[in-house]
Structure formats: structure tokens, C-alpha cells
């Protein structure tokens, strides 16, 4: 039941977001569509259900947004600096980064965050190891790559998802 309500809330919020109108008919149609979608997909949509919406998690998600945006701006300035130089400074490679996160949504969030931050791009996740293409390899040792790349994000994502 809690999973059903959670997916209904998310679908309905998406509908309101996409239509951006508070017209009665729009809301009714949205409610209907969200109800049908939730009935069909609630089982696949989420495992935790309403437990995803505790104030603690929402607070950390909000905080994380700012950390993430700042890291993203830094990433872009870094890549832009490389691109405009006459000879592009590159030192690329694929490194292995361990992660302690267990659930799939948490891993997805971590992989996405890593992709948008300085010089790193997630190529694959195999069990509890992330494989990351790094534009400027500073270390090949998995422990140190964790420090460099993902330790900042993991703290927040752990609070949000687990």
C-alpha cells in the first residue's frame, strides 16, 4: 500500500509538472492517469514506498542539490579550461572505485553525480565496484580513487537513500 501511494504521489507530481496548470479538468485527468500507472507499476517503481519521504531524507536531498551544483560548475570550468588550450592536457584511463552503497537507486544516484563532476565518467557498475573513465588519472589504487572521486557524494547519498 505504501508503495502504491508513493508511486501515485510521484506520478501525479510529474503530471502537474509537465502540464504546469492547476485547471480542474487537467488535475482530474492527471489523477486518473497517475492512478492507473500506480496500479500497474507500483511493484516495480519502488521498494521502500513512503519511507522515501521522511523529513530527514528530504533535508539531505535538498542539501545535496547545492553540493552537487557546486561540484558540477567546477567540473565544467575544468573541462572548458582543457578544451580551449592549444594542446589539450590529457592523462586518461579507466579506474576502479569501490562503493559501500547497497541499493540500486543509491548506486544510480552516485553514478550520475560522478558523471557530472570533474573529469570523470561512469562506464559501468559491476556489483560493488564502479568503473570510471578519468580524464586526468591521479592514482590507480582503488582506495585513493575513492578519496578523489566519490567520498564527498557517498556521505550524502547514504543519508538520502539508506
Amino acid at each position: 500500500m505504501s508503495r502504491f501511494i508513493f508511486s501515485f504521489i510521484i506520478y501525479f507530481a510529474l503530471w502537474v509538472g509537465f502540464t504546469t496548470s492547476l485547471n480542474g479538468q487537467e488535475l482530474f485527468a492527471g489523477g486518473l492517469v497517475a492512478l492507473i500507472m500506480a496500479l500497474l507499476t507500483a511493484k516495480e517503481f519502488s521498494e521502500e514506498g513512503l519511507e522515501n519521504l521522511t523529513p530527514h531524507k528530504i533535508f539531505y536531498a535538498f542539501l545535496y542539490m547545492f553540493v552537487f551544483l557546486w561540484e558540477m560548475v567546477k567540473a565544467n570550468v575544468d573541462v572548458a579550461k582543457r578544451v580551449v588550450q592549444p594542446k589539450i592536457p590529457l592523462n586518461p584511463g579507466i579506474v576502479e572505485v569501490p562503493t559501500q552503497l547497497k541499493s540500486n537507486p543509491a548506486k544510480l544516484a552516485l553514478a550520475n553525480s560522478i558523471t557530472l563532476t570533474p573529469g570523470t565518467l561512469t562506464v559501468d557498475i559491476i556489483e560493488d565496484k564502479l568503473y570510471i573513465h578519468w580524464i586526468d588519472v591521479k592514482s590507480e589504487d582503488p582506495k585513493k580513487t575513492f578519496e578523489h572521486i566519490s567520498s564527498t557524494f557517498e556521505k550524502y547519498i547514504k543519508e538520502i537513500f539508506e
Partner: protein
Amino acid sequence: MMDIIEIIGYILASVGVLFLFLGGLGILRMPDVYNRMQAGTKATTLGAVGTIMGVGLIHPEWFFKTLIISLFILLSNPISSHALARGSYRSGIKLWQKKKIDAYKNALKKEKEKNEAA
């Protein structure tokens, strides 16, 4: 007050289009697929988000819709670039010859052996 928000919007949009241009430049200049992806995904994501949010600030009635588009780009771009990187690697495209390390190769080999054993 209105004017200040509009000016911020224009500044944001200028930074955004600049990054979109740099994304195009990066994709042209980088030496291999994976490095191109770095430039292509990062610079254009910030570029598009900056431009679209800037438009939202210039035209405040549209703010909510532009916020939705930006969030969508922010969520979808890393996923598509990750899928592309994985797809290219598995379709046999090698890293640049001046690469430093390739830990993924061994991992894929291990995975394959495991699948064959099972």
C-alpha cells in the same frame, strides 16, 4: 527588483550558451570517444541548464516549466552518456593509445569467465 532578476537571467543564459559552444569545440578537438563524451556531456549539460534557467528568469511565468526541463536534462544526460560509454566499450572501441590504466578490461574478462562457468 524585476530588472535585477532579468539581468541575472541574461548573465546565466550567456554563460550557458558559452558552455554549449565549448561543448561543441570539445567534441571536435578531443582525441577519442571517451574523452569526447566528457566534453560533450558535461559542458552541454551545464550549458543547456544555464540557458534554460536563464530564460525562465527573464520570463518568470515560464519559470516552473523551465525548471522541469532543466531537471530532466540534469537527470537524463549522465544516463545517456553512461549508456553510450558502456555500449562503445563493449562494441570493441579501445581507449586512446596514450591511456594510463584500464581496469575495466580485466573486470569484463572476469565477468565473461563467470558467465561461461555458470
